[in-house]
């Protein structure tokens, strides 16, 4: 009897203990689930053979696959290069954990996703290794930003070198010009030269002079481009400027079906502003439109340039039918380094710089975009 009652007391105690473990287990699981569901990191678990047995919601997003699609597949299959992923797993096997930077994974859509990965052995109660847990942080955006910064740096460096070269070349060009001019004067004074010879020499000296003039123009343009300068305002005709800009972009428009429509206000549109800076802005806006049209434009691609007088301001519009800017990008297009072009193609500088330039001239750039149709940029600048 006595042993019976002590047994049942023991049973009650064990039952209570079990219940409390159950609660603890439940809470721990809920806690882990919460992490796995909410983290944006790719967290996975594999069995001892490296086969996936768990994947976080963030992991589904990073790789583009749903859990159903990847369950039971080896994790290394999702690395961009499975061969190169194996040493990381081997490291983990050897030391119980491993860290790897910039591990390239392959997104379902084919693009590369870079992650900083931290791997750990999953050990069971007997101390036996039963699998691997990995926590991978998606650093693709950071990497892209880094690449952009490198690109910007490189551009700035090229600018500096070009400016330096242009500057150095100026002096010898000036010497050639003066030497030729002097030679011209000597020829003019020379006695005993035949008429033909004299004419020939004069012609040659003039040519040397004209060509050095040309060199000078090139170096000045280059230096003007490389140098950041404050606006220097002068009277200019916006219509002329737009036509020049189109002429400048003509090489890009060649061999395309893009049509340029002009809807200008009547007569010349005179403003007092900085022609060089404005041209830079229009080259950027029209260049962007061309790029977008070539990328995703339909059959009858067009860019419409329009001008309107509004009180003391003028408004220039650049409209395209390239399908518009995706809703999620519309808030970012003036952000520094935001680009949808592939690395090396876009710097993410064009629009922010254009916005700055227009603001420095007392104006503003705005845009309207209809997804599926096209985009219109409007540049407002004061007349003086």
């Amino acid at each position: 009897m006595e042993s019976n009652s002590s047994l049942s007391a023991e049973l009650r105690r064990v039952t209570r203990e079990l219940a409390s473990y159950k609660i603890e287990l439940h809470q721990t699981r809920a806690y882990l689930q919460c992490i796995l569901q909410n983290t944006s990191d790719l967290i996975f678990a594999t069995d001892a053979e490296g086969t996936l047995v768990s994947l976080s919601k963030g992991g589904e997003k990073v790789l583009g696959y749903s859990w159903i699609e990847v369950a039971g597949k080896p994790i290394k299959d999702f690395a961009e290069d499975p061969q190169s992923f194996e040493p990381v797993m081997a490291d983990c096997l050897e030391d119980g954990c491993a860290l790897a930077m910039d591990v390239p994974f392959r997104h379902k859509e084919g693009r590369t996703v870079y992650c900083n990965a931290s791997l750990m052995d999953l050990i069971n109660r007997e101390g036996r290794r039963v699998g691997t847990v990995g926590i991978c942080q998606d650093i693709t955006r950071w990497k892209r930003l880094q690449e952009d910064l490198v690109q910007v740096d490189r551009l700035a460096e090229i600018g500096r070198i070009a400016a330096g070269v242009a500057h150095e070349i100026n002096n010898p060009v000036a010497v050639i010009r003066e030497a030729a001019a002097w030679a011209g004067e000597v020829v003019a004074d020379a006695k005993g030269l035949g008429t033909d010879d004299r004419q020939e020499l004069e012609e040659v000296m003039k040519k040397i002079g004209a060509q050095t003039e040309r060199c000078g123009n090139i170096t000045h343009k280059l230096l003007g481009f490389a140098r950041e300068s404050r606006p220097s305002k002068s009277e200019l005709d916006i219509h002329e400027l737009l036509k020049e800009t189109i002429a400048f972009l003509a090489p890009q428009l060649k061999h395309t079906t893009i049509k340029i429509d002009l809807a200008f206000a009547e007569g010349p549109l005179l403003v007092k502003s900085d022609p060089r800076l404005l041209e830079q802005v229009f080259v950027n806006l029209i260049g962007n439109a061309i790029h977008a049209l070539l990328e995703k434009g339909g059959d009858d691609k067009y860019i419409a340039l329009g001008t309107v007088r509004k009180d003391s301001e003028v408004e220039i519009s650049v409209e395209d039918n390239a399908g518009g800017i995706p809703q999620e990008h519309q808030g970012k297009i003036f952000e520094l380094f935001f680009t949808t072009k592939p690395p090396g193609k876009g710097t993410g500088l064009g629009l922010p710089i254009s916005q700055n330039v227009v603001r420095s001239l007392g104006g503003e750039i705005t845009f309207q975009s209809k997804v599926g149709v096209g985009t219109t940029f409007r540049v407002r600048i004061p007349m003086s």
Partner: protein
Amino acid sequence: MDDQQDIRVLLVDDEENLVEYISKRLLKKGFTVKATFSGEQALEAAGRDHYDVAVVDLKMPGMDGVETQKKLREIQPFLQCIVLTGHGSIESALESGQEDAFQYLLKPVDYDALVAGIKDAYKKKQELQGAKFQEEVQRIQASGMGAHGIRKALADLRKIYGV
């Protein structure tokens, strides 16, 4: 030859070839030209002889154009300076307290613009000098010196201003 025999030009540029050809052309036009290849040489020349207009390159090793110009004017207060600058350095030249230069010309310099600039600078120098001379003369007259004293003072002035 034109009528600039009496304009004395001091050229200062470390690009010797350029100075050589510009000198030759200016000489042929009738200017009196002294070619120097550094700020130091220019100051030495200005210490010895009198000049009307200096054409100074902004960027030179050693003493640069800004400093050369300043020192030249300490020696010869009426000397007018034309400063030659590379692209984009005009602002920096202006910022470094450079308003005393008569004119800035962009390099590579346009020869006709240079000649015109030298003539204008010479005119300005003559005017300033003339005005100052008049002022001094009046000051002396007003000072109540005797005839002898005035004659002597005027002779001194003539010597100083080369009038």
